């Protein structure tokens, strides 16, 4: 159920994510030393446009990538097809994106926690 366009989108987002994931992992490994705290996380990310870009790209990519990926699985293992399959993909993509965007916003520019 993948045509060339979906395939390319999945690969492009994957390539995009690879360095981001590595970066994320590195930060995690670094951060986890000495335990995690909200303040610690947020102090790093709050107000940083770069982090917004970093995690924002990630959120967009993962939404596209995950949606297409789940689409394949749901088709092959779940037998979903036709319009239902497309609807599924869009719903997943949209939800992933909303969740992601919310989270990224939360850790960067959302108000409520003074630095």
């Amino acid at each position, binding site marked *: 159920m993948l045509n060339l366009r979906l395939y390319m989108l999945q690969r492009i987002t*994957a390539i995009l994510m690879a360095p981001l994931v590595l970066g994320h992992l590195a930060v995690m490994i670094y951060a986890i*030393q000495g*335990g995690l705290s909200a303040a610690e996380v947020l102090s790093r990310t709050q107000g940083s446009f770069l982090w917004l870009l970093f995690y924002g790209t990630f959120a967009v990519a993962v939404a596209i990538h*995950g949606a297409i990926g*789940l689409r394949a699985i749901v088709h092959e293992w779940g037998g979903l097809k036709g319009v239902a399959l497309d609807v599924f993909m869009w719903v997943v993509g949209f939800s992933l994106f909303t969740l992601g965007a919310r989270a990224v916003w939360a850790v960067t520019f959302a108000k409520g926690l003074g630095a």
Partner: protein
Amino acid sequence: MKAASGITSRAHPLWLAYILHRLSGLALALFLPLHLWVLALAMTDPERLDGFLNLTEAGAVKLAEFGLVFLLAVHMFGGLRLMAMEWLPWSTSQKTLAASAAAISFLISLLFFLKAI
């Protein structure tokens, strides 16, 4: 029994790499909403985020996190392997590539795990 023979009859390295990639992708996709939800808490309820993050000290959560990082590593290297296989001019060494990708990802996650303790 049937499922078991269904797997054993397919169990060659590339198929295992495929199933690993798929299951890790699936698990990531299922975990991601959770992960994002937790992060979003930062906006609405920072205390709960802290409470949650404190949990990371507990062994079980650590293990779960190790698993997630492992998943991410496995999936990423599996995906890179796949794209290398598809797009780089063909070499017959894909099986070794698959194996080494899995090994590297395992190593990385192990590193993470060791550091975390």
